[in-house]
């Protein structure tokens, strides 16, 4: 057999499958707005989105736009691509950030060297459309 081997299909980016709870968050991301779920009764913010407020047990809630600033809580530098989609990007830094809005966001960090990372460093969240429906967060220096 001398048939050429077909090139393997390009690995697909893992994409979120929004739920009835999280749809508003992802809709906001697509519009470049960081939308967080708040309890309609006690007002507390919760993330990731879920049906019941764990503080007062209300099921009523609404999404409000939140500020995009935050500070580094911790980070990792991903060298081994557990998903082949990320192979070309590795090594990449993923920062876990204490958002000023009171929740955390995990997202890739751009434009900052590993040696310059420290807990408390100020960052700002950006929005990167990756498909027509999905926009994902990333961080840059504030």
């Amino acid at each position: 057999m001398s048939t050429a081997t077909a090139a393997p299909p390009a690995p697909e980016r893992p994409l979120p499958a929004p739920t009835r709870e999280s749809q508003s968050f992802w809709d906001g991301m697509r519009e470049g707005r960081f939308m967080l779920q708040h309890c309609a009764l006690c007002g507390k913010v919760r993330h990731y989105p879920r049906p019941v407020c764990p503080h007062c047990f209300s099921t009523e809630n609404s999404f409000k736009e939140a500020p995009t600033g935050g500070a580094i809580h911790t980070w990792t530098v991903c060298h081994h691509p557990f998903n082949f989609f990320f192979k070309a990007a590795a090594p990449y830094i993923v920062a876990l950030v204490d958002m000023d809005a009171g929740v955390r966001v995990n997202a890739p960090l751009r434009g900052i060297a590993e040696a310059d990372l420290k807990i408390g460093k100020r960052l700002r969240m950006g929005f990167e459309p990756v498909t027509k429906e999905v926009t994902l967060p990333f961080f840059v220096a504030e």
Partner: protein
Amino acid sequence: MVHPLRDKAAVSGIGETAYTRGTPKSGLALQLEASLAAIADAGLSPHDIDGLVPYFPGGGIAEDFVANLGLPDLKLSVFVPMGGATCVAAIQTAAMAVATGVCKHVLISVGRTGYSGARVSARLQQFPQFALAAEFEAPIGMFAPAQLYAQGARRHMELYGTTARHFAEVAVVTRQHAILNGNVVMNKPLTVEEHHASRMISDPFRLFDCSLESDGGAAIIVSAADRARDLKKPLVTVMGVAEGHPESPASIAQRPDLLEFGLAKAVPRAYGMAGIGPADIDVAEIYDCFTFTVINQLELLGFCKKGEGGPFVMDGRIALGGALPINTHGGLLSQGHVVGLNHVVELTRQLRREAGKAQVKDAEVGLVTGYGDMGDGSIAILRRAA
């Protein structure tokens, strides 16, 4: 008042397959092979088993055990879906079942083809507990436990000055112990330099900070202590046992303190049931999915203060002959990854004084932990009965 579950259950049988990388056998075949070994070790017949807590998801379910072992009257079939915390948490479930008379002999078992079958990233897709990580973290390039737990390790290093040298010590000592065991995947010595030179997986975790992907099976039998006394092997009872579930259980990222997880809640309950504390422990088998995870758990177990786990593991303290020998079988890092049931097998061996070259002298009381999913925890304190 003595806790009603204290010393009411016993680990009466233990069994393992060979731990390998590569096998023609199915996960179910490995699970049944280990189960038959545990049943024989206890001096029982498969027909004596009337309760099951098989590891789930992945592996055999009640139907498989009834079909293969001909169980005539299965009275309890339970899943404990806590990832790596499952096997030790299952001891609590089994102990409740045998102490109340619902069951006589409960089989806890694992069989997996973690090397020759589905690898870690693929297996995780089966876990509903990972749905949030799949929605919010996989798309930004974080999904595997090595990545998700690395952020906690990095924070510990930044806050407390813990170093890769401390991580290496856990890997090197665990390897030394594995070599004494013999039934292990990793049977060559490991040096600190080799640890440091191994490739970075997800900083700060290098290859030798990560547990193995391996093939194998393990099983234990939990029986009522008064029944187990008449069985074949020295009586090893469950002095204390507990499971704990952390805040933000499905997302490490949203957890208030990344370094406080389910084990923190389980530990005081287990010590309370046993009526003892960390100073009474002769040997500890600590769930070692990553080297750092051992350091973190040593703190939560009260062997040292928060932040002091790094220095604690140095100077031979955790090696055989040290003040607190840990993972005397080689653990998940060097023996094999059967979700920590091999840790329970080893602790039982230690307390029976069957641990061969790795025997901790005069071991009377020991503990074993489980750690899994996104931070569920479990602990069992076992003792050699007088």
